[in-house]
């Protein structure tokens, strides 16, 4: 009895982690065998970025039960701060420690933004977070288009005025041109590691005292308070952690680009909504589902490129099918019954 309740969650988590590892191994082997063309190869890092973003947003939407419409904003903050760090330290550090620290910087800076947004907004009950994150995402994107950071001698100067850029010796963030020449450090393996760590952290959180408190708030705030759970504290924990993960994903993203520009397509509202689509189609609250949805919806347009414009039609059909598969109670029960890890467990009993 006791054992079963412990292992049920553990086995489910194991299935999620196994899925990611198998996916990574399969892609690596396929690449060795020359089965992956350059087009698909170029998609591998973004795939990890999007899957990590889906894990991050699922923590807020599916597990905490709050709506964030500006998650691309956290990714943007992480991307720019990490790229900035790499540019500044490029001459003085080796690739490995530099990239490691850059990812950390991206995560921490995004986490600080998440924390600062959370302090006033997560105290309130209602849909305020959706409104504020929506604004945050747009504001960050616009600020990154007018932010100039450069070196004057040995010191670093900031400005929101393009004329200031004239006086700077060396530009690091160049307004609408963004950051160019960020070291090209991101690899599929690093992306895989970031995704894996994010998933392990989130799953370990969910299956713990703090994770249960977070889900209790989602399911019934008043009841959670009645059993002594400090609601704001756990909302802050979930939201800040989610921002940290998004920042790390952004750092990865930035080191995969020749030039990092805050275009609407990259960090705007549409991107935030795309992440939300991953979470919703993956079956809100399911980390594994979010990852699967992110992978499928990122690959489809590329895999179907050969049929031209019809691919968006297929894309739509696949979205509808995924929605039905993940949300229909019967198909959910079917998937549950055919989960290989669950099955083994039943046989054991």
């Amino acid at each position, binding site marked *: *009895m*006791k054992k*079963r*309740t*412990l292992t*049920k969650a553990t086995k489910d988590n194991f299935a999620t982690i196994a899925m990611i590892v198998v996916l990574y191994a399969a892609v690596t082997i396929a690449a060795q065998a020359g089965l992956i063309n350059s087009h698909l190869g170029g998609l591998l890092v973004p795939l990890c970025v999007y899957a990590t973003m889906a894990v991050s947003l699922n923590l807020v939407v599916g597990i905490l039960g709050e709506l964030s419409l500006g998650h691309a904003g956290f990714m943007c903050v992480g991307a720019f701060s990490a790229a900035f760090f790499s540019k500044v330290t490029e001459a003085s550090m080796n690739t490995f420690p530099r990239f490691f620290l850059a990812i950390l910087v991206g995560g921490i800076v995004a986490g600080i933004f998440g924390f600062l947004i959370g302090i006033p907004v997560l105290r309130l009950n209602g849909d305020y977070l959706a409104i504020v994150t929506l604004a945050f995402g747009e504001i960050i994107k616009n600020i990154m288009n007018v932010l100039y950071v450069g070196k004057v001698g040995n010191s670093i100067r900031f400005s929101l005025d393009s004329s200031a850029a004239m006086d700077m010796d060396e530009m690091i963030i160049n307004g609408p041109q963004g950051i160019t020449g960020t070291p090209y450090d991101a690899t599929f393996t690093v992306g895989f590691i970031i995704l894996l760590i994010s998933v392990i*952290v989130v799953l*370990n*959180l969910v*299956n*713990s*005292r*703090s*994770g*249960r*408190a977070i*889900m*209790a708030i*989602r*399911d*019934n705030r*008043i*009841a*959670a*308070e*009645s*059993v*002594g*759970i*400090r*609601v704001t504290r756990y909302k802050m*924990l979930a939201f800040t952690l989610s921002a940290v993960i998004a920042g790390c994903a952004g750092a990865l993203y930035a080191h995969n680009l020749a030039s990092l520009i805050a275009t609407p397509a990259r960090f705007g509202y549409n991107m935030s909504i795309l992440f939300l689509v991953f979470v919703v189609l993956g079956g809100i*609250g399911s980390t594994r589902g979010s990852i699967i949805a992110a992978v499928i919806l990122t690959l489809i347009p590329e895999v179907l490129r050969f049929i031209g414009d019809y691919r968006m039609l297929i894309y739509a059909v696949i979205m509808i099918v995924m929605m039905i598969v993940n949300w229909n109670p019967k198909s959910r029960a079917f998937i549950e019954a055919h989960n290989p890890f669950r099955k083994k467990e039943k046989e054991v009993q």
Partner: protein
Amino acid sequence: MALLEVRNLAIQFGGLRAVDDFELTIEKGQLYGLIGPNGAGKTTVFNLLTGEYKPTEGIIKLDGQDITGRSTVEINRAGIARTFQNIRLFKQLSVLDNVKIGLHNQYPYPTAAAIFRLPSYFKTEKAMNEKALELLKVFHLEEEADTLSSNLPYGKQRKLEIARAMATNPKLLLLDEPAAGMNPNETEELMENIAYIREHFGMTILLIEHDMKLVFGICEELTVLNFGRTLAQGETREVLANPEVIKAYLGDDED
């Protein structure tokens, strides 16, 4: 010293004085009944005692400690736990997890211990599981530990709410119509459960109830509310014999 002392409690909603001049003294170990017609203000009294509503006037003391105006979380930590008339379970979580959430403050460990899966995580979780199952056994819910709480039948959901409240290790347990929607068998079982937690945990209970048989069977003392005011207070038998109570409370049936 009384466990709970309420003096001159009142709350105003716009023009409506939902509870007025409410006084209550409950001794340790007592099972006290709060009755009255629908809309009398019984649930509002619970919301005031648990800090859900802030009183317009009055003082609430638990174990001699003034808890008036404190937050729900602080009041729970001070020792008051409750159930809800309109059931409020953590619906997407298992029966066991619902009770473990009740144990939140009894078995603390840092979040980092969970994320890095340190020994303290495994140790505390194990103790937590054992304690939660022990509580579920009291309410004969241990077989359903893995069931989604929203899939439980109605009567068992009410019992799970009591188990969850008990998990916070309260000094005073507030039960808001625990027998509502239960069949006679389930009500019988509930009465046994209540007797059990009084006996084994020495629990002090304040009970809102509509089922007169239940009230008469187990409550030693009663307060009768009507339109937010106290109509009668005292020993159960005497209160129920009071003609005003009969008129106000049982009157609806005779109309």
